[in-house]
């Protein structure tokens, strides 16, 4: 039982960042219908920014975190502006291919800039874990969890209580009508991509100090983000949040009770199982075709 609780607690700590990744991608996927292959690279970018700011520039940890997120938002906005603007209205294959090209270019640029050696990032938290009864948790993970929750709450507030959020929701429901209502679709797209990228960068900036930063770290993160999008349903933020925690729990339990090697496979196994029984994901409305 203790072991189970420990797994649950680990999952909780990790799930928050997974949720950030998932929410970012589901927004981009849902509102813009773009298969965003650069999502993982934004995650890696966040981690590498932390490395540069904390380790190379010696800046304050928390300030660096904020700056890393802001830089992620900026990178996302510029990617959208340069690559996707012209492709407005193109079919999903075309944008997907452009995203793949961008992903390859970004990842290899990162490799050139920082080499393939993994970089560790110091964090200001005590190394000794916090012990609560039978379970224990590292302080840096608690911090990650709290910040992730805060960001999730902030995103919620943005989507449901601001005009921008309302415009985004309208665009998700029916792009043409939203445009007819006077919503600037171009601005919404840039904002969505920037927001989603910022959340991915935040996830990377939070997890970078917990683990290490290495050039291909984005790949697995992106795949998991895709898994969460399916779990929660396209464009469904609540679903992505739940999906993030569910995935983390499945990974923890799978690694703990089945085999640690298959940890990363858990997400995909979940997807396949869900597809076999509920093709529209756990929470999505039925997506009608034809």
């Amino acid at each position, binding site marked *: 039982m203790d072991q189970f609780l420990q797994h649950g607690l680990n999952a909780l700590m990790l799930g928050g960042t997974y949720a950030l990744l998932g929410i970012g991608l589901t927004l981009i*996927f849902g509102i813009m*219908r773009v*298969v965003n292959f650069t999502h993982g690279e934004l995650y890696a970018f966040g981690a590498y920014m932390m490395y540069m700011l904390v380790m190379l520039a010696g800046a304050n940890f928390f300030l660096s975190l904020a700056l890393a997120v802001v830089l992620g938002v900026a990178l996302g906005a510029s990617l959208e502006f340069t*690559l996707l603007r*012209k492709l407005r209205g*193109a079919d*999903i*294959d*075309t944008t*997907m*291919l*452009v995203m*793949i*090209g*961008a*992903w*390859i*270019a*970004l*990842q*290899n*640029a990162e*490799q*050139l800039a920082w080499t393939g050696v993994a970089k560790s990032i110091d964090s200001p938290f005590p190394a000794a874990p916090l012990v609560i009864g039978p379970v224990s948790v590292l302080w840096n993970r608690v911090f990650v969890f709290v910040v992730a929750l805060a960001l999730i709450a902030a995103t919620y507030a943005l989507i449901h209580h601001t005009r921008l959020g309302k415009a985004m929701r309208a665009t998700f429901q029916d792009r043409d009508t939203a445009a007819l209502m006077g919503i600037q679709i171009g601005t919404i797209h840039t904002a969505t991509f920037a927001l989603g990228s910022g959340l991915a960068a935040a996830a990377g900036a939070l997890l970078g100090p917990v683990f290490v930063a290495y050039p291909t770290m984005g*790949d697995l993160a992106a*795949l998991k983000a*895709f*898994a969460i*999008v*399916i779990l929660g349903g*396209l464009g469904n933020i609540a679903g992505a949040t739940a999906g993030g925690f569910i995935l983390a729990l499945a990974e923890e339990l799978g690694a703990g009770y089945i*085999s640690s*090697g*298959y940890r*990363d*496979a858990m*997400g*995909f*196994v979940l*997807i*396949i199982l869900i*597809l*076999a029984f509920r*093709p*529209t*994901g756990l929470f999505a409305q039925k*997506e009608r*075709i*034809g």
Partner: protein
Amino acid sequence: MKNALTALWLAFLASIPLWMANPYVLHILVVTGIFIVAAMSLNLLLGYAGQLSLGHVAFFGVGAYTSALVSLGFSAQIAPGMVAAMDPKPVWSAMAAAILVAGAFGWFIGKLAFKVRGAYFVIVSISFAEVVRLVAVNWVELTQGPMALNNIPPLTLWLPGLGEHAFWKKPENYWLVLAVAVISYIVIRRLVHSRAGRAMIALRENEPLATSVGIDVTRYLVLTTVVSAAIAGAAGALYAHYVRIVDPDVFLFIYTVTMVIMVVTGGKGTLAGPIVGGLIFGLLPETLRAFAIKPEAQWIVYGVLMVMVVYFLPEGIVPAACQWWQRRQASVAAAAAASPSRPAQ
């Protein structure tokens, strides 16, 4: 006329090992040829049926592993008390098994994955490939995991005049790959120009209209996946017995990406597209390497190249070239019609 050109072209291709002295060039051609077969198979699913399948490397890898395992023999426990084992079998039967297993895999994945469409389908296809990769890494008893399957035997055929001949050398592997490529091309062309091909294209162009005249969506998507997977499996088998080492890296997503780049830049939905794309992206790395450019920089070039092709030649190189040729013919004809009295140049 067209047949004569084709025959000449094939004769030229077949003659290369006879005069190409550099074994490294031959090696590049063999690997490129294998990739072209894989790209042609992906083109069937991505180009003709219009399905964004990004898990194609799974079929390639399954073919490679199946062929390797059957030719090496294996023994692994699949359930408590149940052991699957096989003695080493001749390579040609291993390759046949690879094609069948990859095709069956295609059937299974197709049946499951096509329950969803569009963006979801893309994610699912990637997920399948990742699961297969992780199984290859972790099921060490069967696959040797990251330690790889090595000493895979080359193909051994009875050839008239030579008797039992093992394909150790590059020239014969080149001819084998060329033969498989030609056969794959013919099979794909026959399929595409038939009722089945028309059904795939109809589903891609206008699905509601296609179903209204009786085309069964699932049936044709699964059929396309099975054939596509089987051909990719054949490419994988060729790879296994040429390189003679197979490890889980054969399932890396980057190889799917390579195949997608080849198909898309060459021209998806055309027969020549994957061949042109395969030649470009098979030979490009070597050309860049000659300029002592780092591999990372190479990939950046590919990424940029792909983005540019998508922007400027969205249909791909082959269709763009055809259109350019047609426009040139039209303007030449127009010029000739406008001034009939001008003497021939």
